């Protein structure tokens, strides 16, 4: 059950232009699921910062984030042993499906796909990065996935091209129960198109500027179509994961 939890930072490292923190809290770890997020208090910022859960093991949760502003800058400056206050776990994450799945991550959308891949019977991954210096977590994906395809915008790591290109290739090679993706909106849209072409259900994790994190303030609006009705649903509570066919991509 979501609640406020104090977590001790037990490990910290930086890679790919991002910061990884391992947070210790057994009660929080026990109820966290793939694709959910933590709403982290960053110093005296008015708003918490929503950060996806990258991994859960025993009493610990891993988050990986990029410094984007004052809040994430504060969080990245915290050292091992410091305590951070977390509201979570929040949101509807990726569904558990039977069979082999394809996980797709782009940039800072890569981390949440790790726990999702780990939770599957079998998984392949397509991971996209801007350039080699931004590459991250690929070894950990290789440890839990069968096929791991790395793509980069400039060809400095893996193959040159987009995540959707890699996804289309794997979709031809294997039969999947679902495609699950997190990354920039244009990547999600193109991955969803590739999945649709292959006739495979696709789930995408959406992002929007967020307030309360629990579905009350209605700021993190995402236009979707559900049961034929178009309207705003909310990333924090209805999502962050939506069925790709429900998302209005061109809004």
């Amino acid at each position: 059950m979501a609640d406020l939890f104090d977590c001790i930072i037990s490990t910290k490292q930086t890679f790919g232009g991002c910061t990884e923190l391992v947070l210790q809290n057994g009660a929080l770890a026990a109820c966290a699921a793939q694709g959910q997020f933590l709403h982290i208090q960053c110093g005296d910022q008015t708003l918490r910062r929503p950060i996806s859960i990258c991994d859960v093991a025993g009493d610990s949760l891993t988050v990986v984030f990029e410094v984007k502003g004052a809040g994430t800058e504060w969080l990245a400056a915290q050292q091992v042993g410091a305590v951070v206050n977390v509201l979570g776990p929040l949101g509807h994450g990726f569904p558990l499906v039977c069979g082999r799945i394809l996980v797709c991550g782009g940039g800072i959308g890569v981390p949440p796909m790790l726990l999702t891949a780990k939770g599957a019977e079998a998984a392949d991954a397509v991971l996209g990065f801007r350039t080699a210096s931004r590459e991250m977590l690929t070894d950990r994906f290789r440890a839990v996935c069968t096929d791991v395809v790395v793509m980069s915008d400039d060809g400095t790591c893996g193959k040159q091209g987009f995540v959707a290109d890699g996804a289309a290739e794997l979709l031809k090679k294997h039969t999947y129960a679902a495609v699950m993706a997190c990354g920039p909106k244009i990547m999600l849209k193109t991955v969803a198109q590739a999945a649709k072409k292959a006739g495979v259900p696709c789930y995408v994790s959406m992002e929007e500027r967020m307030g309360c994190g629990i579905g009350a303030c209605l700021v993190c609006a995402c236009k979707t179509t559900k049961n034929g009705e178009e309207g705003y649903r909310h990333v924090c509570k209805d999502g962050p994961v939506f069925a790709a066919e429900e998302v209005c991509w061109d809004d």
Partner: protein
Amino acid sequence: MTDLRVNLAGVMLKNPIVVASGTFGFGHEFADYYDLSELGAICAKGLTVAKKDGNPPPRIAETPSGILNSVGLQNPGVDYFCAHEMPYLKQSGTKIIANISGNTLDEFTELAEKVSAAGVDLIEVNISCPNVKCGGLAWGTQPESAAAATAAVKKAATVPVIVKLSPNVTDITAIARAVEAAGADAVSLINTILGMRIDVNTRRPVLRNNMGGLSGPAVLPVAVRMIYQVACAVKIPILGMGGVASGADAAELMLAGATAVAVGTALFQNPYAPIHVRDELQAYLEQHNIPAASALTGAVMPY
């Protein structure tokens, strides 16, 4: 034993801490964290006659000690509220305030009639939303239109009526006096202050609606000042709001003249905020040997 009860326009609240409209939905999300009966009252998300989708995102921007929002009154419409949300809210064990927003005087009357019939304890009339093109703030910036909206609600309301005032005016006391004369049983203030932020890299406003309403600790001193001015100008009680995040903040608004105090933006950081504010207010009262919360109202000693 400190008496936390306050009388807001004839409705007895078990404590002075209310949750502000638009920050608490219809209560469901917070019932996972504590019993809603702990609250003095719930002011529900603003309602319009027809369902409203609200503004396109981004709808929120952080500011120094505050936020800007431009939700644009997204709500399921008054009929849905009466049929599907009121049964839940009615059994929550606290007083329910419906917040209504009309485009026309007839709409205000219709909204008042419907929420009265659905069994709300109080009505808050929103004449101060800065985020919609029609209605909203347009009603609240002139004494005449503010009075007209008040009268339209009073015509159909069977429960006490609170009129929510905008700080985006030259003289808030003129509006307060006008709505008092039109029959308002109470006023609430302040709604958000119109603001804007621009991303200096993209040269685009952060909010898709360009502008939005400022709330949070940054606006607290403006709220204190306006509550003080309005308390000096009218006899009806005040539901105070604006950046309250602690018991001391709530006490400050009450000393300025508020009978009860709403917590809003603080909920975004901590869903337990109103409970903490209530407990801290109680501790403050005990520490100062004040037997009743109501003794704070207007008790500032101005120079």
